């Protein structure tokens, strides 16, 4: 196994590729009671356009199919899958996001049985037609649950406004219409396309020996199953620079209005995975200094009663898209939006303090250490960086070398890009 030392945090990561093409990564954590195993399928809601390698015929998957598949995998097999895990004292769960579907369990007991279940579940499923209808009903209920959820609305409306064609604009759940389109044939096709072992990584964190684990895994039936090559390739959709809807104003059943602005990053800032990740952290540093809790503005806006302590920013940068969202509850949403736009477009005239920048770097380093306090956050960070395709320790080392002047390209872009404004009115 390939051994990699994370010197800063005194940890070692072991990596290997199994005979069926599945990559495994093991982070041994002696002393911890909990163990975690995650099957990270690099197939999420934005992976909708595929082309056949030989015929070049395009296939477009309906929105929501990744999440639907996630639900169906819990329904395949003879027994209730959640209960099977429970019987070996493991708790299983899954989630679907824009760029991945992750199936994971945690246990404080023996690993082998639940690991076998997990591999079976993800690598050898069956889709029963009669269960598709049941899932359609459950997912429709899930829609209704999110319908009343204001956070979801803020997120979804911002993406709708920013993006013209990139599939990130569609809801991960899909829509009632696309959910009703689901059938056995399309689900099997999507599974073939997205769940090839070479597109999956198995991440293991806990108190165990990596070599023994590798041997145990190679012997498992799901790994020994023969694999046919994958014939479809993902096609990246080129998103225009112009936003879709510059300004949104919606009435909602809430007591305080929300003011938000949103920006999308140009593909020039997302050339390589490590560049994208460094730009993500640079955006975070910059926004923290401009309007985070360290800034004068954050406190000024709260004093002026145009924002409150829900004021926050979110930077999300992935392989094929990136956006920034700034949002707060506000009793004067128009005024707050004006102020937010002002600080971004005039940011080049604001001088940034070296010590505050150092504080940002120190906080990042602190959060990196803290990740290794919990099995779950270690599994999450390994998952994130597996999907990003970069080495987390290398990334932290590079980020710790950044200086305040390295923010210049981001500042320049921010001052000159189109900004979407959104009001969710009480």
């Amino acid at each position, binding site marked *: 196994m390939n051994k990699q030392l994370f010197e*800063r*945090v*005194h940890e070692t990561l072991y990596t290997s590729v199994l005979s069926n093409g599945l990559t495994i990564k093991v982070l041994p954590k002696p*002393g*911890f*009671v*909990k163990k975690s195993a995650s099957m990270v399928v690099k197939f999420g809601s934005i992976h909708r356009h595929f082309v056949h390698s030989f015929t070049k015929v395009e296939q477009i998957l309906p929105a929501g199919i990744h999440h639907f598949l996630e639900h169906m995998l819990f329904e395949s097999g003879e027994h209730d899958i*959640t*209960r099977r895990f*429970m*019987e070996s*004292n493991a*708790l299983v769960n899954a989630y679907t996001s824009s760029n991945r579907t992750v199936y994971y369990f*945690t246990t*404080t*007991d023996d690993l082998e049985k639940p690991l076998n279940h997990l591999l079976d579940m993800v690598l050898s499923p069956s889709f029963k037609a009669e269960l598709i209808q*049941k899932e359609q*009903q*459950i997912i429709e*209920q*899930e829609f*209704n*649950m999110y*319908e*009343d*959820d*204001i956070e979801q609305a803020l997120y979804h409306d911002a993406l709708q406004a920013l993006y013209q064609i990139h599939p990130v604009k569609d809801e991960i759940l899909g829509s009632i219409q696309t959910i009703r389109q689901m059938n056995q044939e399309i689900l099997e096709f999507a599974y073939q396309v997205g769940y090839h072992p070479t597109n999956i990584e198995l991440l293991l964190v806990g108190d165990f020996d990596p070599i023994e684990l590798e041997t145990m895994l190679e012997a498992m039936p799901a790994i020994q199953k023969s694999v046919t090559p994958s014939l479809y390739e993902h096609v990246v959709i080129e998103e225009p620079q112009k936003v879709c809807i510059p300004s949104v104003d919606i009435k909602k*059943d*809430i*007591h*305080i209005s929300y003011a938000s602005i949103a920006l999308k990053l140009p593909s020039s800032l997302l050339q390589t995975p490590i560049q994208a990740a460094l730009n993500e952290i640079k955006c975070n540093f910059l926004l923290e200094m401009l309007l985070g*809790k*360290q*800034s*004068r503005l*954050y*406190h000024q806006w*709260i*004093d002026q*009663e145009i924002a*409150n*302590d*829900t004021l926050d920013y979110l930077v999300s940068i992935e392989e094929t898209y990136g956006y920034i969202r700034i949002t707060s*509850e506000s009793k004067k949403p128009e005024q707050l939006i004006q102020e937010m736009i002002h600080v971004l477009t005039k940011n080049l005239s604001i001088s940034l303090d070296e*010590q*505050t920048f*150092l*504080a*940002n770097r*120190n*906080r990042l*380093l*602190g*959060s990196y*250490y*803290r990740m*290794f*306090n*919990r*099995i779950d956050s270690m599994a999450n960070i390994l998952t994130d960086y597996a999907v990003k395709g970069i080495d987390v320790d290398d990334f932290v080392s590079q980020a710790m070398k950044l200086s305040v002047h390295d923010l210049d390209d981001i500042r320049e872009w921010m001052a000159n890009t189109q900004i979407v404004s959104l009001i969710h009115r009480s």
Partner: protein
Amino acid sequence: VSRQPSIHPAFLLETNQFKTTTISLRFIAPFDSTSVNERALLPAILLSGTKKFPSRQRLQLEYDLLYGSEINGRVTRYGDTSIITFNCSIIEPRYLDGSIDIYSKIVELLEQVIYHPKTRKNKFVKRIVEEEKRMMKEGLESIYNDKIDYAYYRFKQVMFANERYATFETGDLATLPNVSVDSIMESYQSMIQTDAVEIALSGSSQAKELLSSLEAVFAKPWPNTSFTWIDREITKRTKPQFIKETLPIKQAKVNIGYRTHTYYNDKDVFSMFVFNAMFGDYEQSMLFQTVREKLHLAYYVQSSYNHNKGYLAIMAGVDPANEQITIDAIHHVLDTLKNGDFSDDDFQLAKNYLLEQQRRGMDSPSTLLQRHFNYNHLLGIEYDPTLFAKQLWEVSKEDVIRIANKLTLDTIYILSEDAHE
């Protein structure tokens, strides 16, 4: 049952498992409904500026320079006792390059926040107090934005309407305008002068050094007052109350409350835990399996047991057309448990689930500190990580049946859709 008190006002749980040392500083006092707003505001006001670091912004810079050692403060309530806790975790010095003396820095920060708040002429700053009042008001109002939270909040208001418990430790909107810089000062003086103080740490043996520094600043003798951690007040009712309110929402929220007549320091509490798990606490529970999986009535359905107040609440999100049938189904599931009509498998699985949860807590410094606190104060015994498993194995199927029959239905609260829509 009389128990020997064994209070440790300052201690270190020694472990090398984590990258951080975790600090919990608690100020403990009898719950007083007349100062609930002041006490809820105090942590935020203290954390908004000190003599040396006079603004939130300045404090934030200090936290960040110290690798994100943010100090958090909050108020909680256990029965008739109110606790203000300051929590903080710092990176252990063995991982750092030594350029910062992180121990003395964090002690200074805590001392500043707690003993040297920003004041003017011995009064808290009016602007800060008013700002925190406004944030609290907006926070309380925003509960309305999440309809699940809002329904649960209303449910508790309705179920405990005439009880002490109805005054929530998070603050009261109606009396909030009465808070003044003087009433805050009064509450603050009472906190630093009369509250009992507990200093709890988890970290490597090196943190002994930190513990002594913290003791030198904060430790004081434990007071003679005994605290009441359990609230046994129950409103007498001739029949359960049924209350339905409406809002323009798509999914109705059904909340059902039972009195369990079982509290944390009762011997029955372990049977109660097993019962609650079997009833609705996890995915294999009978509620989840029946109401969601078999009948497809709800997207979520869950029960939770509050061991300090002795109530059990069920929350479900359902189509408004299915409200009554969901309630019937929930009653039916409870009857099944009352009649002992469940398999040995279900019973064992619930125990395994609880043990799993218990073991998982061993990997979390804050959970370990919380358990230490619960054993020490609520049970009055030494922390014993094996006790839970021992007691759990002794629970029999008959115990679960007995607990199920002890439950009394108190309140059904539904937040439903507007009929006009």
